[in-house]
């Protein structure tokens, strides 16, 4: 089971540009073939195998829907680690930008102003990074660039989540 990539499990091409709709369609198609309920009359040992496959397919959907995880999966397939655990160096300007965003979110929240404009700017940065990933993973493969972009995207996603969570409280 482990020999099949999440892309192969859902019958999708190994590329970064995959819309959520496409992943959803691939998932639906695959899960419908392996869900244990399709084997309701079969012995327990067979259903357990189906269950493992179904779990793997559900996980593949989550993995391919999330751009960070999708990009990381592609990098792994190409033999390149994202290095997020061993290599924590980051461009100073990028880190400074993060700090400024966080401070801005703090002061907006304190003054009761809308977070939307800030979130829109962060969203723009996210869009740029996703475009960079499409470029460096699909169009003209460049592992070093892709690795840099996916690591930045991780930071951007985290700050977006943190701001949204803060807004809910």
């Amino acid at each position, binding site marked *: *089971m482990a020999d*099949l990539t999440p892309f*192969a*499990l859902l*019958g*999708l*091409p190994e590329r970064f540009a995959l819309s959520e*709709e*496409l992943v959803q*369609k*691939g998932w*639906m*198609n*695959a*899960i*419908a*073939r*392996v*869900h*244990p*309920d*399709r*084997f*309701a*009359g*079969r*012995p*327990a*040992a*067979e259903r*357990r*195998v*189906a*269950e*493992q*496959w*179904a*779990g*793997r397919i*559900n*996980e593949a*959907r*989550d993995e391919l829907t999330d751009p960070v995880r999708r990009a990381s999966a592609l990098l792994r397939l190409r033999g390149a680690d994202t290095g997020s655990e061993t290599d924590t160096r980051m461009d100073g300007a990028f880190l400074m930008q993060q700090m400024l965003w966080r401070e801005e979110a703090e002061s907006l929240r304190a003054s009761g102003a809308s977070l939307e404009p800030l979130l829109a700017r962060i969203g723009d940065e996210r869009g740029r990074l996703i475009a960079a990933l499409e470029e460096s993973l699909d169009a003209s493969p460049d592992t070093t660039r892709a690795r840099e972009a996916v690591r930045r995207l991780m930071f951007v996603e985290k700050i977006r989540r943190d701001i949204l969570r803060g807004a809910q409280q």
Partner: protein
Amino acid sequence: MIGLMQIAEPGMSAAPHEERLAVGIDLGTTNSLVATVANGAPEVIRDEKGRALLPSVVRYCPDGSLQVGYEALAAQESDPLNTVSSAKRLIGRGRSDLDGNIIFPYQFEDAAGMVRIRTRAGVKSPVEVSAQVLSTLRTRAEERLGGELVGAVITVPAYFDDAQRQATKDAAKLAGINVLRLLNEPTAAALAYGLDSGAEGLYLIYDLGGGTFDVSLLKLTKGVFEVLATGGNSALGGDDFDHRLVCWALEGLGADAILDAQDKRRLTVAARRAKEELTEKTSTRLAVELSGGRSIDREITREEFARITCNLVNKTLGSVKSVLSDAGSGAADLQGVVLVGGATRMPCVREAVTEFFGTAPFCDINPDEVVAVGAAMQANKLAGNNAGDDWLLLDVTPLSLGLETMGGLVEKVIPRNTAIPVAMAQDFTTFKDGQTAMAIHVVQGEREMVDACRSLARFELRGIPPMAAGGARIRVTFQIDADGLLSVSARETRTGVESSVRVKPSYGLSDEDIVRMLREGNESAKSDMLERELREQRVEASRIIESTHSALEADADLLSESERSVIDSAIEDLQKKAAESDAGAIKQAIEALAAATGDFAARRMDRSIREALAGQSVGDIQI
């Protein structure tokens, strides 16, 4: 009918067999029902008097006998301490979990884990009470269908946690019912509607039962029912509307408002009647005689009733909003709203729902019966009676699962609304130098503090080799099967030290409890049971022999010669035991054959799934 999804069988079909009797059971707080699919059409099974509902009420009578249903309900006023209703509110709950706002007229017994009720027949757990209701429905179904059930799908509120689900399963086990699946009630309702009315798109199920409120958002696509999000309130239902009316009536009594158990019961019954009358009439009287010559006689209008219950209705709409926001949807995205549960008959609920969604809800199928009908359809499918229709239900886990970490915080491992079956892993590490054991505490709930979540299980991973703090890498894997039941394992990834637990909630019954209750309950019917057991084991033996033969015919190439001969001799042994009349020996031989073919079955399944998946590609997907 909707355009159902056509799915290629992955290279095998179930062994041929006769129609297997299976039912869907809606085990409700107030009423329960049983339904089946006969000749391709679902139908509710009625009692000898033609009544579909069975009040979920059990009475322990002075002569030692039992009453279940309408008889027990009728005795509720006169014998409140020995007549148990709303057991569903108590099942899988501890004393401290119970909603303080609800008056329970019982004498509770403090027991470890689940709350228990003292009756003249002894101390009863809510599991035993529910088992009596289930057993009555099982008998009704078997008499009507003329045979033994292979199993049942039992519905539970989507919001039920693992402890409540496990307790419900225990009740079924006590009632001698093989549970094919625990199915979420709103999902069952959607099944019943989806297949009848050709629905596609987003649907919201608003299910206000006697004791629980559930809301689920489902996406229907080509015969696939996908649950996107679920929420609700496990302690809010029609009974709370009764309770509001009781409080309203008591206002009139002032300082005299001290009631004994019988008074409480009388007043509750009168309040329920008044509530039901307000569905048809615009006003009614709530009149009741109480002890000590006191009485209540007040007129209530529909408007007044709506006013005193509007905070309850608003609570339901609050849950609706959070489910919609969980799924990133709004009321405008919905194709329709389905009403389920007898309490949705209340005009104030229908009006509030219509106003909130800006559209009239669906209520063509009797709201009392719709859940049992959907459950029957799923039961028919899981029993292997493929009626030709090709739909599939993809459910999610209703509550987040996590682990306790430092400082009493919860680290979520599986977030709520994750599609099941699922396996997810998270890495943890040791926090002390030389630490050789790690306590794993599994909790369920949405809050960040352990104390605010439900504790499901504790176990320990031992034998970690001493390392510096943070040196060990402990991978904890949560696995939820298609039934929604959880197992957890922990493994130190560098050394391979392993420990796992099948989660048995701390609030549930122990296996010893179950065995004891089974023995008590079946003492009288022991010989019947033995005979039934023997018949069942023989049927099972011939099924497994037949399916092993057909598997050997199809995929013998997957076996080495020695593996093949092990299987052949296990078949031979089972055939011999089945010809004798020792049920236990047959069971053992069945287990031996199942064990001998386990690897073979796994290899066959693996092969056929690979073939099925290899057959797909984006080419099949129309973008």
